[in-house]
């Protein structure tokens, strides 16, 4: 009974209600601007809310977290610049929809799916948190390595016209990810003695350049083309549409919760995996993937918001952050005099139920603010290209600069923008490059941890994978995915070739 009071305390106290709403609103716009991250916003808030009670501070942070993860989809759909890495997959089908005049519909759909995904994440948090966190910390370095390998397989789904070009782009991304000081030994790799290279290449700068700037440059080819008139008659998706995709939404949310709960991975990887999953299980999409498939929007958007609930799971039960944002929130709890740790759940169960209830509230506000104002936003892409493209460039420069307040990142962003333009001209997709740079360190670090743990013995390493049920399952999934891409499997079980990948490359 008492739990119920805490659950709804933020719903009935006007100040908490207001702060959650404010957070969700601010989060959407912070999340939408590339380079401004939720982590950054929450860190700033820690100092700002220091003298407050802990609950109002948490309400504001929860709101920002929820809204911010969703907000990244805005610019991804409208301008092809993902507001955050978690929205990379969203741009793959969201932006083509906008180009066809369906931006309003795309934003509406992603808002509703983010809401459902967020809700699934919170329900799992409320019902199964202790079990899932025990499961999540069981992941060994070799399991993280296998997850990274699973991630690398997504190259197949992201390659576009040619698998070979996709593999090249992915490998290039992995190579870029190794630049800088070796995270294990601090040996310099590909730095050529340059200090600015020691910090590595920012994946956010790369993302802004390759997606946003390159697309702006590409659009200059059609400078005289009339901007597509946006259909804004139907923004809230039809109930039938939601129901038809409910199974995909729930599966994607499941992926999101688990990946979000793992202490070493977050919403970006979850969204990409969900996108790949959608592509695999959708036999006959109305529109092909990459050209504006609704499924390609539904999966990543539900997954990345489900990862929010997921990230809270190890944090609230064990005091272990599920991602960068919850790590900051742990710091906030700490300076508010709480001891975030495994005992928090026992000593202060109110904290847990308050967070659960407050997250639901934040999710609802995100839905409300997400669905209003869409009409004005879709006008952005209707404005003349002579106005739009300088605006995109300005946004990209500001975004790249604000990652680290570093001009070097701006140069990287512009350089990769031009490079991405040529890649696109020659039929290379840019998404695998970003996939590569994101997964590079996850794979590198964990492979080395795993092999060091086995005292550099490959047979022991393989034996370790085969004898652990968890690792063996992950390996099984990888083998299965590879197997389903063989010609034999496709001839036998495959329906008409639906996706653009491997089939065309054969």
């Amino acid at each position, binding site marked *: 009974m008492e739990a119920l009071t805490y659950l709804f305390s933020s719903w009935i106290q006007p100040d908490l209600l207001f702060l959650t709403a404010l957070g969700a609103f601010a989060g959407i*716009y912070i999340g*939408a*601007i590339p380079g*401004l991250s939720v*982590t*950054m916003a929450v*860190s*700033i808030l*820690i*100092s*700002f809310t*220091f003298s407050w009670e802990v609950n109002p501070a948490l309400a504001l942070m929860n709101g920002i977290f929820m809204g911010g993860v969703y907000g990244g989809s805005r610019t991804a759909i409208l301008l092809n610049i993902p507001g955050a890495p978690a929205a990379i997959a969203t741009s793959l089908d969201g932006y083509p929809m906008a180009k066809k005049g369906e931006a309003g519909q795309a934003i509406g759909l992603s808002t509703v799916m983010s809401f459902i995904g967020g809700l699934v994440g919170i329900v799992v948090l409320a019902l199964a948190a202790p079990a899932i966190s025990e499961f999540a*910390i*069981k*992941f*060994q*370095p070799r399991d993280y390595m296998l997850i990274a390998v699973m991630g690398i397989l997504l190259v197949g789904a992201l390659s576009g016209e040619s698998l070979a070009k996709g593999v090249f782009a992915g490998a290039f991304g992995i190579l870029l990810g190794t630049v*800088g*000081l*070796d*995270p*294990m*030994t*601090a040996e310099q790799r590909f730095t050529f003695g340059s*200090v*600015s290279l*020691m*910090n*590595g290449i920012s994946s956010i700068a790369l993302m802004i350049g390759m997606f946003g700037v390159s697309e702006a440059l590409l659009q200059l080819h059609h400078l005289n083309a009339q901007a597509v008139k946006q259909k804004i008659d139907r923004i809230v998706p039809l109930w039938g549409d939601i129901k038809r995709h409910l199974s995909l939404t729930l599966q994607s949310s499941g992926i999101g919760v688990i990946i979000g709960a793992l*202490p*070493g991975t977050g919403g970006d990887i979850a969204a990409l995996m969900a996108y790949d999953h959608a592509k695999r299980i959708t036999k006959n999409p109305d529109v092909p993937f990459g050209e504006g498939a609704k499924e390609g929007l539904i999966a990543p958007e539900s997954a990345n918001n489900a990862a929010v609930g997921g990230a809270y799971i190890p944090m609230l039960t*064990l*005091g*272990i*952050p599920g991602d*960068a944002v919850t*790590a*900051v929130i*742990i*710091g*906030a709890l*700490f*300076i508010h*005099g709480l*001891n*975030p*740790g*495994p*005992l928090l759940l026992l000593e202060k169960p109110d904290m847990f139920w308050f967070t659960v209830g407050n997250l639901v509230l934040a999710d609802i506000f995100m839905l409300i603010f997400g669905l209003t104002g869409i009409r004005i936003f879709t006008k952005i892409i209707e404005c003349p290209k002579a106005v739009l493209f300088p605006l995109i460039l*300005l*946004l990209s420069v*500001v975004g790249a*600069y*604000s990652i680290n*307040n570093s001009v070097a990142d701006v140069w990287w962003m512009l350089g990769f923008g031009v490079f991405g333009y040529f890649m696109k001209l020659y039929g290379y997709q840019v998404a695998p490059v970003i996939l590569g740079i994101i997964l590079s360190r996850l794979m590198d*670090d964990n492979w080395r*941890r795993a092999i*060091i*743990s086995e*005292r550099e013995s490959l047979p022991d390493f393989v034996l370790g994978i085969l004898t652990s049920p968890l690792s063996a399952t992950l390996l099984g999934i990888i083998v299965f995915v590879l197997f389903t891409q063989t010609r034999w499997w496709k001839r036998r079980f495959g329906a008409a070739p639906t996706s653009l990948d491997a089939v065309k490359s054969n």
Partner: protein
Amino acid sequence: MLKTLVGAFALSMAASFAMANDFPKQDLQGVIQWGAGGSTDLVMRSVAPHVEKELGRSIVMTNKTGGVGVIATQFVSTQPADGYTLLMSAENPQLYKVMGLSNLDYSNFYPVNVLARGVPIIVANKDAPFNTFKELVDYVQKNPGKVRMGSTGPGGLPSVVGAMLSSKLDFKVTAVPFDGDGPALTAMQGGAVEFMPAVLGAAVEHVKAGRIKVLAIFDKQASPVLPDARPITADYPQFESLLPWGPFFGVFVKSETPDDVKAKLVAAFKKGANNEAFQKLLSDRGYVSMNMSGDEANSFLKKWQSTTSWIVYDAGMGKKSPEEFGIPKP
């Protein structure tokens, strides 16, 4: 949105015109050397709000992990010496030269405040086949090289404690490096490593909850926070000559920073660190408050560097002799 953009742009322009006399004109950037949730992170995030009140500006903190903290240290050293970028770090840079990691150490920086020092403890996975440090030593000697120790890379706290252990005992283990003691403690709970040396403060909540067990305190006396944990010298008096030893946490700026800026930062941190809530938080987590700056801090840093560099070098872990850099033998 346009307003936000204009605002952000104006802010970035303001950065280049900031003058020392009215420091701080804009928010400061705090670069934390270790991962979120680890001990350095916790100390920095809890002192910052008190300091912000003194400075009247926010300290925006980011974790820049990797390479035993070299990445963050290197990063701050490439930023302008205007006091707007703070290095929030632990003891590691004092070993970079000996470890061959970097040519930087704290002599390149000015100690705004050495906030506190920590006491190392040795903790283990709760299902590990040993319950005391003595049992661990026996177990390691029976299975040389097979026991996995959580580490944070060469020069990190676990590796130094490991060097001290192997300098006095027959103690061969496999060190698996993680991105800081937070992630390593998580991995230990999942069974990826069997034991690890960690700062008391980062591990204490997990010990109290019974999720991990404490084998020994790496100190001469027991800690009031964990009174049941046995000091290592009780069974192995040979460690007495090395103790007390421990990590420390401090806030630094580049040494070329203008003096009036340094003075403002020192005053703000001194007052912030004296805050009752922060002091209570330190002692609750088993840290010893230091709150020193300038020359006092510098002599502490030099002494620490000389003791530890030689231990590490004598243990065969260092790549270069401390002599090369003029680090005196203690």
